[in-house]
Structure formats: C-alpha cells, structure tokens
C-alpha cells in the first residue's frame, strides 16, 4: 500500500503559449488566417458563436480573437505575437485532444502566415488539498523551517528554477490545508507538442514524488 499523502485536486489549469519568431505587427494578416484556424477546429464541434473578437490590441501579445471550446473550458487566443491555449479543470486524460488543438492551430498559423513558432511555454497550475497531514507536518518533510523570532512561519514554499523552467509550491490562498503548485517549462525552436507535453507530465510526476504526494 502506498504511504504517499493523498493530494486531492480542487482546481487545475493548463496553459500553452507559442510565440512567432517575430510578431506580425499587422492585425489584418492574423484575420486573414481565421478561416484556416476555424476549419481546423470544426471537427471539435466549434460554431461561429464560439468565436469572439476582442477590441484593439495595445501590444502584439494582446489577444485579438478568442475561440471557445468544450463548454468554455478551453480557450484559444490568437494575437499578433503568437497564440495561447488555456484549459481549466484539466487532467492528463484530456492531453490527446488538447495537443490535437495546439498542433492543428500551430499548423494552420505557420502554413498560412509563412512563419514559425519559435518559442513555447507550457504550464500547469494546481490547487491541491492534502489529506491526513497538516501543512506544518507536510512542510517538515521537504524544507527545514526558517526560524523566525515570533515563530510565525505559516509555510516554507519552494521555488526551483531549472534550465528549462520553474517549480513553485506555496500555501494555497483558496483552500484550507491546501497547497498551490505551478510547473512551467520552456522550449525553443521547432518542437513537437506531444514531446513537450510528455516532459511536463514527467516533471509533474517528479515533483509529486519529491513532495511525497499522490495527485488525485
């Protein structure tokens, strides 16, 4: 039987950012590829009502067009600098459909705009509630408590910066006895989304093992 601490996922969020080698600077170029992006999303039951036009952009990375999918749980934002995919309440079972959306969108944009997605960032954020252990005891397992004269330390968080990204573990601001976890991974150049997703999955597994938790 596993003696790992059960960590119940209360909320999870995934975000992918893909940036063009150079921003387009010209909104009309982006609008011209909308039919191709929309056609790529049609197999996923997108309708015209799911496409939203935003107001004028003040920077190239501001979203100009948003596609909503899956009862608004998924959002695909297009900007002159690239595109962002966001998903709420995610788990790894959704990975195949999410990577399909990112891959399809990436192909539609790069083929029609004659550009490349030069850098990528994948991110998972989770609000987890720990069962059977207090935050103080959980904290002891991986970080020595910094001694404060008033003994008022609530939680010793972790920020790990690696060659490819960040790990953050903090006390949850939302859930009693909970922690907030964020894993960020960056990639450069032409990289397959499935490979990047696998790295993110492996890093999540590594962090869970390091913390001694089992994410449910």
């Amino acid at each position: 039987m596993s003696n790992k601490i059960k960590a119940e996922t209360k909320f999870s969020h995934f975000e992918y950012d893909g940036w063009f080698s150079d921003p387009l600077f010209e909104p009309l170029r982006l609008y011209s590829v909308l039919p191709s992006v929309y056609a790529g999303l049609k197999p996923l039951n997108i309708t015209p009502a799911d496409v939203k036009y935003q107001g004028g952009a003040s920077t190239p990375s501001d979203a100009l067009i948003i596609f909503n999918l899956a009862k608004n749980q998924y959002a695909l934002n297009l900007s002159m600098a690239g595109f962002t995919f966001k998903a709420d309440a995610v788990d790894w079972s959704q990975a195949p459909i999410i990577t399909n959306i990112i891959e399809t969108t990436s192909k539609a944009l790069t083929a029609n705009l004659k550009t490349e997605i030069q850098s990528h960032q994948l991110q998972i954020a989770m609000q987890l509630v720990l069962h059977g252990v207090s935050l103080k005891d959980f904290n002891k397992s991986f970080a020595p408590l910094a001694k404060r004269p008033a003994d008022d330390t609530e939680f010793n968080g972790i920020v790990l910066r690696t060659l490819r990204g960040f790990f953050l573990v903090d006390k949850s601001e939302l859930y009693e006895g909970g922690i907030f976890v964020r894993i960020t991974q960056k990639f450069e150049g032409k990289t397959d989304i499935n490979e990047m997703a696998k790295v993110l999955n492996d890093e999540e597994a590594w962090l869970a093992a390091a913390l001694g938790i089992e994410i449910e």
Partner: protein
Amino acid sequence: MYTISSDLGLQAPGKVRDVIKVVWPEHKGSTTETEGKRDAQLDFALLDAIIAYPERDATLRLLDSLTKQDKPLLTALQSKDVAFEILSTFYSVRDSVPVKRFLSVHPALKKLLFAAFPRIKETWGLHAKAELQVFSDPEDDSLSLVVYIVSERQDAYQLLDRFDDEWWLSQAGSSDGLLTFAVR
C-alpha cells in the same frame, strides 16, 4: 553631486544584473530658504521620475505570473468529473448515468476517447457523429463501452477497417477489451 546606485535584485537568466544609476543634479545653492525647499522638491521629483520602475521588466512580470495563484472562474464546471463533462461536448451520450459510472470505474478509457474523437472526424468526415453507449453482453452480463459512429457515407463500414488499421489496433491493448468502435 550625489550618485545613487540601486540594484533591483532579480537576475534574468544569462544577463547581467540590472543596475539603475540615479544622478542627482548638482546643487547650486539657494539664495533664500524658500528657493532651497523648492530645489529640494525638484530634486525629489527628478529622482522619482528617474527610478520609476521599468514598465515592462520581463523578469518581474515572470515572477508575478509565477506566484499568482490561479483560481477557478465562475464559469468553470463545478462537477467532480469535468473530464466526462468535456467528453460529452464531443460525443453524444444517450444514457449518461451508466456511461459516467462505467468511465469512473475505468478512467483510463477517457484518454482513449479523447484521442479517438479527432481520428473519427478525420476518418468519417466532419458530419459524422459519435455516440457513447454502455453495452451489456447477455451471455455473460459483462459490460463494455461502445462508440457508435453515425455516418451517411456509403463506405462507412469500409472506413471502420481503415480506422482500425491506421489507429485503433495500435491502441486497443490499453482498453483491456472494454472499448469497441462500431458503425451504425
């Protein structure tokens, strides 16, 4: 002349630490006390203007986005089984209670279903529909999940062979025989 060096402390990867040097104008001396106060105020105004925080400091923005805690939006689905709710935006589910129950007992099938949906559309076309239904085998009372592909194409049955050859046969092992695809 006074010179203040202020180190903002956060180091961008591979970059030299940012240093802001604030150079105060040389004080030329005041003839009256009022002028002296005004000069001092001008000095401070200038200082504020010069050390104004760099508006788009990438490192600080990154730190801010890193530590900010994501919260569920009001529109977020509150169901315990959000993956099923999302699946049901892609598949038609005729009788959702047994399908939901079956998938909660066999959660690995959800990943297969998410992977299968784009393949179904690729194979049978955009107008094809996919329905989920729990099938109860009358011979041994065993249960399995069936994806019925509803297509008006003449070659719908032949396309099932193509679907099997190109994708499903390489995946079927992970379903433990609990998932099948059929054309209706």
